[in-house]
């Protein structure tokens, strides 16, 4: 988004402390086709899966998704048509399931659908966006082919004479983030690694926050140093237990490895890869009436086991 427009959107939006609770459907209706959407978490960790699930159900099209490392959710976004372009540092199924065949199908047919940055490079794009500046200097990526294909500009520091690269800021239309707890105003407390969520929440024009648990505002005020994202960044709050499933939420549940494995192995074996994903989408995304019904399909046992492995007291 244009630098001045991105600032103006923040200037003009209603940032007041107000009850922002809404439904998953309502929250996702804030996202438009072709928007630029930043996805919180990293690889399997704290993925706002419920929002991605609803984006696919609402048949959003041609969105540019930013995610520091992309996993199977990238397959689902590509095949559903929701994702026109992936902006990421890494896109694969996962270490034990090999390279994503879906990513390969799309990126080998049209290389522009997978825009690669280094992890720090992409992080700095959000950092600059969050700082309200149009670009930021770095030493990373110098001399590599990533510098060339991204068309990055060189910059000589006027103080030290050091050679650097200038990384352009990114200000997405919407950031989607999942936290362990938040209050109804959108004060979010993330436990464990915050990944890039603090930067993306400030860089984006709008933030949709899903949370495992909505807590009282007094609880937030009891531990204000744990608040990573203050209310004025956030536009919608949705309480969504197991909102990262089958990915993980730190201190609450681990990934449902066996369910990810069923998908990963199934995709490896399937002759018609796209068809396999379409069937998966139909069963798990389009058919269920709501998010709990989606969780039902995986079963209570999977949720219990993921919780048993992943919970850390007193989170």
């Amino acid at each position, binding site marked *: 988004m244009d630098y001045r427009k991105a600032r103006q959107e923040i200037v003009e939006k209603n940032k007041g402390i107000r009850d922002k609770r809404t439904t998953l459907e309502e929250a996702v209706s804030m996202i438009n086709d072709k928007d630029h959407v930043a996805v919180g978490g990293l690889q399997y960790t704290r993925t706002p899966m419920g929002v991605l699930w609803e984006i696919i159900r609402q048949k959003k099209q041609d969105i540019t998704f930013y995610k520091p490392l992309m996993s199977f959710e990238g397959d689902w976004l590509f095949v559903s048509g929701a994702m026109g372009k992936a902006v990421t540092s890494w896109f694969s199924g996962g270490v034990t399931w090999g390279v994503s065949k879906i990513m390969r199908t799309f990126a080998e047919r049209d290389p522009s659908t997978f825009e690669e940055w280094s992890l*720090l490079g992409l992080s700095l794009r959000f950092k600059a966006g969050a700082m309200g500046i149009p670009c930021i200097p770095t030493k*990373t990526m*110098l001399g590599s082919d990533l510098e060339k294909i991204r068309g990055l500009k060189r910059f000589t520091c006027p103080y030290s004479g050091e050679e650097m690269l200038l990384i352009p800021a990114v200000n997405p239309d919407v950031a989607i983030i999942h936290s362990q707890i938040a209050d109804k105003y959108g004060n979010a407390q993330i436990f464990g*690694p915050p990944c890039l969520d603090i930067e993306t929440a400030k860089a984006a024009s709008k933030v949709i926050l899903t949370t495992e648990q909505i807590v009282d505002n007094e609880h937030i005020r009891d531990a204000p140093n744990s608040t990573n994202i203050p209310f004025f960044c956030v536009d919608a709050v949705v309480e969504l237990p197991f909102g990262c499933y089958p990915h993980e939420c*730190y201190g609450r549940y681990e990934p449902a490895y066996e369910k990810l494995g069923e998908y990963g192995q199934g995709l490896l074996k399937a002759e018609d890869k796209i068809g396999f994903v379409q069937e998966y989408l139909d069963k798990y995304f389009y058919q269920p009436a709501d998010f709990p019904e989606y969780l039902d399909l995986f079963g209570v046992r999977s949720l219990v086991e993921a919780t048993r492995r992943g919970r850390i007291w007193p989170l």
Partner: protein
Amino acid sequence: MSDYNPAELTVIMGSRALQDGQIIFAGAGLPLLSAIHAQKMHAPSLAILFEVGGVAPRITSLPRSTNEARSVRRSVATPATIDMMLYLQRGFVDVGFLGGAQIDRHGNINSSCIGTLEKPKVRLPGSGGANDIASSANRVFIISYHEKRRFVEKVDFVTSPGFLEGGQAREKTGLMGGGVEKVITNLGIMEFDKNSRSMTLTAVHPGITEEEVREKTGFELPVAEDLKTTTPPSEEELRSLRALDPEKRYLKAGDF
């Protein structure tokens, strides 16, 4: 002599290259196994960092990726990803441990594509944090299976910079990290000539000949005058390593 497979041999050689007290970045799979093994054997205070946001975690079960809660359990801190990566740029990271689909004479690594990026034969997963590690870690070790199609004259795409075109090219481009110090494979150890910055065979593993290494390398590989032979893995090293991966997810026989 003990019986071991190529993956086990390589991981143990990687482990030996690490020193107690170092701060390191190690990717999932063999590099991480080397790091944990080093902690068990000779480097108890080696601190591992993970991109997702983990500083010196206590790793009890081998994580599938380095980017999940399991990999950051009992960390002393869980910083944001950007801070983890900026520790590299600031010079805090002594060693970065990398692998790659292709590695060339000057230690450049490709993990982006085979062919060109405009017309890829195979699109690979991409850099992740590898470029940042290669750019800024104080030194880099590469761990790889040794075969001709991996060790190429020139990588199809420089995802992670080694010494670029060789000579002073790396310094001239403004990179601060020290570049690749060692390439550790199942056949031997390679280091880089001080002037040309070309890969040179400096050690072979027991039972491996210099001819075999040269044959499995896709470019003319110089051999150091004082070529050494490494000490084979001990029973204790192997026992300790196998306990880390009982399901043999990474320590399978054959190539890796």
